[in-house]
């Protein structure tokens, strides 16, 4: 895979062998849609890769009363075809914008989590649903909320030898409306300039509860809790929400990069809230 020659890849027989190999310094490989690009660009050069993509323990989607357990090797496409995507419209909206069909057949949602990109489209629904990340490591298993798992761009709470085993996606109470939009120069194969996802519970035309998650405007996906709180009791009217959109623009901490300037990202973050209001009001 590298310019210098193929990467060394080992295929563990089971989860415990996988954990042992990762503890020895192996880099976990699932879909490869990001990792192989990084190896090719020589951004990193791990001694060997541990192919987790077909480990039986990491497959499968289990529907429970209170949510869905998604194995770490489950691809975006498989999730989109599953009943979970029907139960969780926010997941469907976000995952269907990832890359393009072939990328969605390869990449995994847990891989999106492990990459910890502030632009990770798959992270937005996980932040909104307050998903939990189940880890397996040499010391056994532990579970973290996704917000505590992701620490910064490319940084996670994974300890040596730990791998993501599964994700737990709680089903939200009631019937929230779902919103997801990412802004960029084209629709496919796009890394967002800014994105906003929302779950909004409405009662008689006013917001009863709201969860928002922004991508690409801070070192991690951002839950603007102050703005969420202030939405409560307000109608989804862009005029009423204009001051809140302004507040959201001030709250984000974007950077300038080759895709957009920080000030443009600020502007877009606020406008996305108004777009959410218009889209969900109908």
């Amino acid at each position, binding site marked *: *895979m590298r310019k210098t*020659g*193929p*990467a*060394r*890849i*080992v*295929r563990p027989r089971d989860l415990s062998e996988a954990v042992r190999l990762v503890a020895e310094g192996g880099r976990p*490989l699932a879909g*490869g*849609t990001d990792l*192989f*690009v990084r190896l*090719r660009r020589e951004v990193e050069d791990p001694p060997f*890769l541990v*192919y987790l*993509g077909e480990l039986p323990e990491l497959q499968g989607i289990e529907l429970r009363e209170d949510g869905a357990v998604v194995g770490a090797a489950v691809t975006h*496409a498989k999730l989109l075809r599953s009943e979970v995507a029907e139960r969780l419209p926010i997941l469907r909206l976000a995952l269907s914008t990832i*890359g*393009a*069909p*072939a*990328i969605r*057949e*390869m990449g995994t949602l847990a891989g999106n989590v492990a990459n910890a990109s502030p632009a990770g489209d798959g992270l937005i629904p996980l932040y909104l649903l307050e998903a939990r990340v189940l880890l397996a490591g040499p010391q056994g298993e532990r579970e973290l909320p996704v917000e505590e798992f992701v620490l910064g761009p490319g940084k996670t709470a994974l300890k040596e030898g730990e791998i993501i085993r599964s994700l737990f996606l709680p089903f939200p109470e009631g019937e929230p409306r779902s919103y997801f939009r990412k802004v960029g120069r084209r*629709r*496919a*194969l796009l890394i967002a300039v800014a994105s906003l996802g929302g779950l909004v519970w409405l009662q008689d035309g006013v917001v009863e509860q709201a969860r928002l998650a922004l991508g690409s405007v801070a070192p991690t996906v951002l839950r603007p809790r102050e703005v969420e709180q202030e939405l409560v009791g307000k109608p989804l009217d862009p005029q009423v929400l204009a001051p809140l959109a302004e507040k959201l623009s001030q709250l984000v901490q974007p950077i300038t990069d080759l895709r957009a300037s920080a000030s443009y990202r600020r502007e877009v973050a606020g406008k996305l809230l108004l777009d959410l209001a218009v889209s969900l009001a109908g």
Partner: protein
Amino acid sequence: MSINFRLNGREVEVDVPPGRRLLNLLREDLGLTGTKEGCGEGECGACTVLVDGRPRLACLTAAIQVEGKEVLTVEGLSAGGKLHPMQEALIKAAGVQCGFCTPGFVMAAYALLSENPHPTRQEVREFLSGNLCRCTGYEGIVEAVLLAAKYLRGDPSRVTPDGKTP
């Protein structure tokens, strides 16, 4: 390492490092140069092949990831020397100019038509959104997929379940 998989309907066994790119394995080790390398980073779709019936990018796939699987490349569609209806449609609708992206488009379109025999224009555009073409402006390609869908619906006997023209 010895890797076994099915390629265009035939069992193959190759002795390659498990991290060898499927793209190199196909093109260099097995001589199937229909699959093209465009960007090598998953941005252009020129290396699209089908693995167990689903589209995948051969540039971001390691040999070990197709172990025990069924790989279909553009060569597998015209086995027996007869073009697949998708390929005929591309000629008919003038969906080919320089041709470099064409095998990737053929495979992506084939994947779409296998799961959705009645795609709308919008569905075609969305499904092919990961494939770049710098010549045609896409109109001819989209027309060709819609035409191929008609060919395939009109005469099912032309295509066997594994996609080969008899």
